């Protein structure tokens, strides 16, 4: 049984970490909408793994005697992300961009593990940044992610129309003279910053999950892309915070718990989407039949098969029982 009281009683202990997860979930959730619309899920996976490699490399450089102010994990994550972004951005005429992104992901994952074995004392950190098992956040790191979330929120407020336009209709944006390259640059920079800082704090697994799952759920329930951005940011924040709660309650690794909560949100959104679709289809069916029957009168020679139903007679129309009475016609459901 989950003990909610003790979760909140211990809140002070992991408040910064939980809020950092919430901020990361919100900003990555919003950016994930662009990732999904542009069909670049592989890129987000490669970037989060490159950030991991950057962090591992920073730890290794510190062990080798590099100055700590230079070889910081956050700078390492940013460097790794930017390098991966640059490699992924090289024009590709072979049509095998997904293969290139897969290669970046694999090289970075293998590199992180390889470096991890060379710095045994930091192995715990390497595991944390791969799977998101970390539960503590330094005050400086918390400040960084809080300010970054605020900055990216303002960028979204200002540029979301342009960013969505370029993502949804690139040709149209170019014909209309939008600053496509500038908007691409802003998006890539936002992704690089959000991924590198979040990976440093949470690990590659939840970062990848936040970029895919909340957006997947939001696109199922939103009416338009702008709404999807807001919903996705909210769901990302919910997964970030809810993951901490689940990890606390069920003694799970935080990254895995956050991913599971995000996956649960996707499932919920899918059910809502499916239900709404069925309701709409049913309403359209009812409307169609109502229109048909305004000009149709059931009777012995109307062309529909009469079916006995309880104490009255219905007529079979497209598998539905229609019951005419008092000048109108009721749908008595499937036969």
């Amino acid at each position, binding site marked *: 049984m989950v003990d909610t009281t003790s979760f909140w009683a211990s809140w002070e202990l992991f408040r910064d970490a939980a809020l950092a997860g919430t901020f990361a979930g919100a900003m990555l959730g919003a950016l994930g909408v662009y990732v999904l*619309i542009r069909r670049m899920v592989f890129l987000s996976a490669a970037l989060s793994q490159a950030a991991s490699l950057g962090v591992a490399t920073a730890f290794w450089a510190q062990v080798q005697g590099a100055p700590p102010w230079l070889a910081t994990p956050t700078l390492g994550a940013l460097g790794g992300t930017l390098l991966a972004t640059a490699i992924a951005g090289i024009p590709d005429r072979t049509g095998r961009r997904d293969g290139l992104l897969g290669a970046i992901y694999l090289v970075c994952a293998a590199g992180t593990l390889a470096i991890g074995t060379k710095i045994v004392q930091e192995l715990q950190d390497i595991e944390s940044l791969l799977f998101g098992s970390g539960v503590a956040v330094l005050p400086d790191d918390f400040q960084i992610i809080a300010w970054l979330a605020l900055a990216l929120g303002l960028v979204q*407020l*200002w*540029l*979301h*129309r*342009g960013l969505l*336009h370029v993502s*949804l*209709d690139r*040709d*149209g*944006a*170019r*014909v*209309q*003279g*939008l*600053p496509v390259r500038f*908007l691409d640059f802003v998006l890539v920079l936002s992704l690089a910053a959000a991924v590198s800082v979040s990976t440093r704090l949470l690990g590659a697994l939840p970062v990848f999950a936040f970029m895919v799952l909340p957006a997947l759920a939001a*696109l199922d329930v*939103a*009416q*338009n*892309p*702008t*709404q*999807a951005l807001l919903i996705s940011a909210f769901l990302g924040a919910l997964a970030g915070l809810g993951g901490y709660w689940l990890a606390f309650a069920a003694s799970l690794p935080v990254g895995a718990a956050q991913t599971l909560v995000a996956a649960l949100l996707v499932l919920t959104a899918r059910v809502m989407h499916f239900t709404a679709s069925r309701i709409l289809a049913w309403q359209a069916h009812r409307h169609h039949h109502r229109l048909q029957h305004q000009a149709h009168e059931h009777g012995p020679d109307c062309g529909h098969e009469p079916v006995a139903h309880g104490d009255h007679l219905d007529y079979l129309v497209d598998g539905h029982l229609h019951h005419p009475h008092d000048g109108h016609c009721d749908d008595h459901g499937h036969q």
Partner: protein
Amino acid sequence: MLLHIQDLWVGYQNRAILPPITLTVEPGQLWAVIGPNGAGKSTFLRTLLALQPPVAGTVTRGEGPIGYVPQRSEVDPAVPQRVIDLVRMGVERGWRVLDPLAARRNPAVQTAMRDANVTELARTQWRRLSEGQKQRALLAQALAGEPKLLVLDEPTSAMDVHAEAAIFNVLERLRTDRHLGVVVISHHLALLAKQATHFLLLDKDENLALVGDRETVLRHTAFIERYGQVLDRGGRHG
């Protein structure tokens, strides 16, 4: 002048696929770009819109924006979008996109939706529209930018006869009432023969780029050889 194309060679990777094309689009003209599948029509259109570089030659735009109506398949049905959202995107121009509320304030959105007859569909999701409704929504999007020149890539493919005629009626009204220039790729020769003022007949395999006004092109042997019988039947060509 809305658009002037001078000795334009179109193609890929510095290899031209058609002979050079020179033409000028003036207000009130409807240019029909015709030719068999794979003739180079879309390549020409993309070059004209600066979506791909020319092999050689120049494209000079006149005053006023260009409205572009892509093929319907280019809109992702997996992304939730209502007609009003799609049309609002048409308002964005250049760096004005940095104003997040510009599209909401712009009265051109409502006018464009009225012109394209999609006002009733404003809150309907793109994926629930019929083929004809989708095309009208894309036309409204292009009109929201208050263009002087409309460029349409096969706007009536996969449409029934009535929806097709409705689209061409809207184009005819825009051309005659508002003096918009129109460049359209279409296979519907019967409608084009009545409404187009000029033709550009392309055939990559025959290295052909025939440019001229309607009367000239319809009488040209290259046109009659290809489409004379089709036109006599009053139908479409593939």
